[in-house]
């Protein structure tokens, strides 16, 4: 897990200001300036579970919606138990990893960092 300066909130998902800015930038580039960011977890990946990040036109009815730094984040309801307490950050630069999930529920993480086990 990478070091973070953002204080986690155990029962929600926290987005860093930098991550929110990059989401807005990606949304503009994708021609979806009003787009919403939806996050979830799917089965698979080396460690069992993989993060999913999508720009969508609208959230699903039972998504949990979080708003921070002007960004609306929808969390898949069934994925929430695996993500509660997570801080979504952005690691930039030439060696950066892009969006990074600092997830306190992850007991194991694979080499590439996109898959985790609980």
């Amino acid at each position: 897990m990478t070091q973070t300066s953002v204080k986690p909130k155990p029962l929600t998902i926290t987005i860093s200001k930098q991550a929110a800015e990059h989401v807005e930038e990606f949304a503009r580039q994708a021609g979806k300036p009003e787009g919403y960011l939806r996050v979830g977890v799917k089965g698979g990946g080396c460690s069992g579970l993989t993060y999913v990040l999508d720009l969508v036109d609208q959230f699903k009815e039972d998504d949990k919606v979080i708003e921070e730094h002007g960004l609306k984040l929808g969390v898949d309801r069934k994925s929430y138990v695996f993500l509660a307490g997570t801080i979504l950050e952005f690691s930039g630069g030439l060696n950066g990893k892009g969006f990074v999930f600092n997830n306190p529920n992850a007991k194991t993480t694979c080499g590439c960092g996109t898959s985790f086990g609980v």
Partner: protein
Amino acid sequence: MCATLSKTQGISTPAGQTSFEQEYQALAGGAALADRSRMGRLRLTGDEALDLLNRLSTNELMDLVAGQGAVTILTSNKGRIVDLLFVLREQDSLLVLTGPGNGKKVADWIDFYTIIEDVVVEDLAEKTTMLSLAGPAAAGLLGKVAGAGPASVETWESAPATIGGVDATVIRNDFDGLDGFDLLAPAPDRQRLWETLIESGATAVGADALEVVRVERGMPASGRELDEAYNPLEAGLKGIISFTKGCYIGQEVVARLDAYKKVSKHLSGLKWDSNTLPPENARLMLGGAQVGVVITAVRSPLMNRGIGLGYVKKVSAVPGTSLILELDDGQAEAEVVDLPFVPSPETES
């Protein structure tokens, strides 16, 4: 020895229908019929079902078209074997065949990893029956009762068939190293399907004969040589692992073991100069230290001796190596041999 109920291979043919010798001959040279309804049967529906299974198991499944299937391995995040599956792509769903008695375990495994996806798992065990025809004359017999179409599908492909008035799904498989067909039909039609095939010349076989044939052909089985104590590379299943498709659960461990040649033991054939069978999980020793274990041991009529499948440490898993096999009463000299012990017979044309 006669046909008996077995816990190991999903065979529930009652004892005493035919002699062991008749059953063994049917498998080696005829058309054998077994009830394999203990194998789990699941149907997965939902747009992401194929993608999900592709992410949970070792083989490449995304290329499958309707009517085509593949064998794949569910692995844990430590790269250990959860179960060996056959996945058939149907028009709007997937049919998954599991190891004997593993239907619920596999359904639960898939269900645990179904989070954001729209995938529904249905257990078909109660609704369906599964009979299997195997042996060099199986295709000929199936052709007689179901027509040339179902009998001529390629291995791991399926076709619908009507057999004695029973609608069935026919899947051609590599039945423990023999040409064979799985026949799935509604559970109430089980007896009619069975009788049609027996009346057409199939020989009912039970677990003992099937187990001997399986070991002779060096095929590891779910619940025997294949479980969470071992990984697919140790079990000799590299051929059903895709090293290019990307991540699946356990992929990092499996890829590392392969790349750095860190596989520490291998599925091996063992033979010894007597018909005495060792106890379950008998130890294989070399120089006073354990170097392996025999998982399944049988008496081979063809080789007229005891043979077995087991795991042997890499350094000793070399054909010709002589090991000490611990028996209940004493010990025997066992030799490591190449698998299979005997080649599969040619299918009759």
